């Protein structure tokens, strides 16, 4: 079965490709090549008309909480994967803080099997760094790697002991695994429920100082230098942390980092009504830090956009602010919020693709992904930069509804998602691009003004 994505505007930073008028040919779940303008459509080929759309290598979310096994009332792997493809993500990396924790190959295999059964996004498990993510003993990284993990993390918390973190880094190197660290010095952030600053004082809520993140990121950079390990800082949110990462990169360390859409979109002022959908960890920061995040997206310090999709049940979020759990959903809003930055002229689309696909694939060593080069897995995200829409959480594919972005007007969206050559998501307003037996001429392309 062949699939032709015709007449789109192809952006593939891995090949330095940024061009209209090409058509992407997919065969047997792999990229067969790019057809030039005027080339004939091969026989027995299903055509998707991507005129006016951006064709990008499939987006990879490095940071997703899928809640299965153990908390299926919040999300299952299938519902999470369904939300992922609706948001343009072809691959999602499942954080290990499930119940039980993914700290052994049996859980790893279970997650992979559930992901395959859902037949939507690729699901790549991340294993725990330490057993039960308790920070005491190393988890079976080698066995989990054999079972299919793509990285290790004790996400939700950092590894508090510096000596344990050092051992983990040294050990992970032997399996070529990147350590993803949720950097937060727990002795500094203990009891905090929002960013410490003017707003936490006004609201009378216990704050988590930016220093808690800074201290831990600096520690990880120092240890990465000592161990030469590959370290990926999850959801950076502070100026100090970004300065440390910038310096570490300059010094040639293997340090990378990601940012979430909420950390560049909202400030701690969003907490002012005590809406528990503004409660997450790391917390929404003050303007100074948000500005630093935007700068770092621009100058390349930030490698990736990740959602930190963290579904929680309505009942859990309906508690008092300090009692409610941390986290918000993010799979279906991330791309729209990334387009905000493009339309504001802050970053270009190529940089978005780099942060959502090219770099995540490289950092986690996902072979034959993150690019549209020949023989790569046929994971493709089609984007319409001009679609104006409003996010309506009641139509979310996720099981949970905890988002601060309900009713937010968006400009730009993922409209079709192809995983392994299969069209797994098509935006309801775009069914016209997927008509069977349509006759399409491969023609020149022009972006709508």
């Amino acid at each position, binding site marked *: 079965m062949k699939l032709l994505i015709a007449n789109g505007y192809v952006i593939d930073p891995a090949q330095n490709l940024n061009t209209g008028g090409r058509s992407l040919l997919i065969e047997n779940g792999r990229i067969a090549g790019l057809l030039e303008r005027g080339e004939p459509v091969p026989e027995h080929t299903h055509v998707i008309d991507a005129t006016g759309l951006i064709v990008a290598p499939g987006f990879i979310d490095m940071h997703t909480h899928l809640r299965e096994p153990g908390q299926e009332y919040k999300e299952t792997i299938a519902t999470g994967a369904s939300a992922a493809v609706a948001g343009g993500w072809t691959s999602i990396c499942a954080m290990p803080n499930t119940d039980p924790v993914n700290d052994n190959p049996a859980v790893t295999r279970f997650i992979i099997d559930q992901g395959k059964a859902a037949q939507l996004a690729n699901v790549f498990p991340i294993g725990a760094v330490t057993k039960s993510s308790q920070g005491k003993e190393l988890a079976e990284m080698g066995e989990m790697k054999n079972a299919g993990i793509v990285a290790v993390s004790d996400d939700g918390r950092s590894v508090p002991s510096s000596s344990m973190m050092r051992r983990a880094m040294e050990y992970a190197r032997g399996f070529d695994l990147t350590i993803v660290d949720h950097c937060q010095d727990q002795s500094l952030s203990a009891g905090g429920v929002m960013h410490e600053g003017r707003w936490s*004082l006004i609201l*009378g*809520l216990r704050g988590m100082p930016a220093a808690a993140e800074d201290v831990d990121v600096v520690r990880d950079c120092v240890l990465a230098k000592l161990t030469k390990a590959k370290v990926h800082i999850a959801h950076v949110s502070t100026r100090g942390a970004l300065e440390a990462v910038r310096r570490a990169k300059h010094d040639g360390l293997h340090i990378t980092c990601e940012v979430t859409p909420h950390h560049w979109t909202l400030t701690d002022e969003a907490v002012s009504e005590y809406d528990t959908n503004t409660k997450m960890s790391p917390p929404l920061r003050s303007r100074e830090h948000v500005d630093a995040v935007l700068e770092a997206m621009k100058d390349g310090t930030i490698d990736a956009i990740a959602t930190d999709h963290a579904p929680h049940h309505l009942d859990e979020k*309906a508690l*008092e602010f*300090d009692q409610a759990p941390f986290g918000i959903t993010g799979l279906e809003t991330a791309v729209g919020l990334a387009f905000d930055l493009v339309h504001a002229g802050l970053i270009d689309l190529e940089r978005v693709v780099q942060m959502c696909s090219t770099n995540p694939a490289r950092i986690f060593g996902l072979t034959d992904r993150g690019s549209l080069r020949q023989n790569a897995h046929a994971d493709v995200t089609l984007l319409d930069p001009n679609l104006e829409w409003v996010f309506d959480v009641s139509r979310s594919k996720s099981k949970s509804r905890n988002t601060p972005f309900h009713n937010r007007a968006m400009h730009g969206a993922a409209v079709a998602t192809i995983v392994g050559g299969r069209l797994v998501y098509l935006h309801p307003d775009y069914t016209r691009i997927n008509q069977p037996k349509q006759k399409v001429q491969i023609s020149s392309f022009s972006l709508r003004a």
Partner: protein
Amino acid sequence: MEATFNRRHLLGIRELEAGEIVHLLDTAESFREVSRRDIKKVPALRGRTVINLFFESSTRTRTSFEIAAKRLSADAINISVSTSSVTKGETLLDTARNLEAMAPDCIVIRHSSAGAPQHLARMTNAPIINAGDGSHEHPTQALLDALTIREHKERIEGLKVAIVGDILHSRVARSNIYLLTKLGAHVSVGGPGTLVPDEFAELVESGLHIEKHFEDAIEGADVVMILRIQRERQDAAFFPSMREYAVHYGLQPRHLERAAPDAIVMHPGPMNRGVEISSEIADGSRSLILDQVTNGVAVRMAVLYLLAGGSHAEHEE
């Protein structure tokens, strides 16, 4: 501009205009007289139901609200709920919705979680009065403090007020800082560095000074407000010992020598005698601690009257 108070809830002082505060104080003043009568009752809220929903222990505030409601002829119901096992019991939301189903005219809530009254105000229809939420606000305390100051100093504008002690955890400090600066007072705060963050200066646009040294906050003060050490909100040590606190941050007669000659002393209670305040001061001639309690009833009568069906609410329906 005619001063009125047309809000549905009283959640905090921060969002109020100066005119609204003055109107609340004026209304309270007119109710003060009721408590001096032989028969301390007016029919203003006859047939109205006020629920005091207290999730945190309180003697003074709960009694004060109850007396205030009864002197207005409302039916007051007190509910004390333990929050020690939040996950085991009914959620705040369900509790409130159940109470609402019994059609109260007002819910007075005290809760250890900041924002709990906002949460209720969003989710239910009854007018909500915040009787203290975590470290956030305690609006009726600030109002009764202001009423007490006005009673003794005849003004608030231009006064120098020192607020000393555990500022960080204090809802009383926050509500008072908003109220006093809105009415034109100059407020200085002082206490141990661990309990007086510099960022407090950003709480209001002007009129607030953070003093590094405790005594400097009291210098020249017309009013000295002492805050309680809130052991229940401190899960870590913010100072080495009660002994050291009493020596360095407890208000002693020698501190008052630096205040204005006719300075008055206030404390929201309950006091830790010998810790943040010495008994000489607490029981001394400058202490207005019991006046505060008396004024608390008048202030709560005013707030209940305005929110639970006094004049304007009737027109509204």
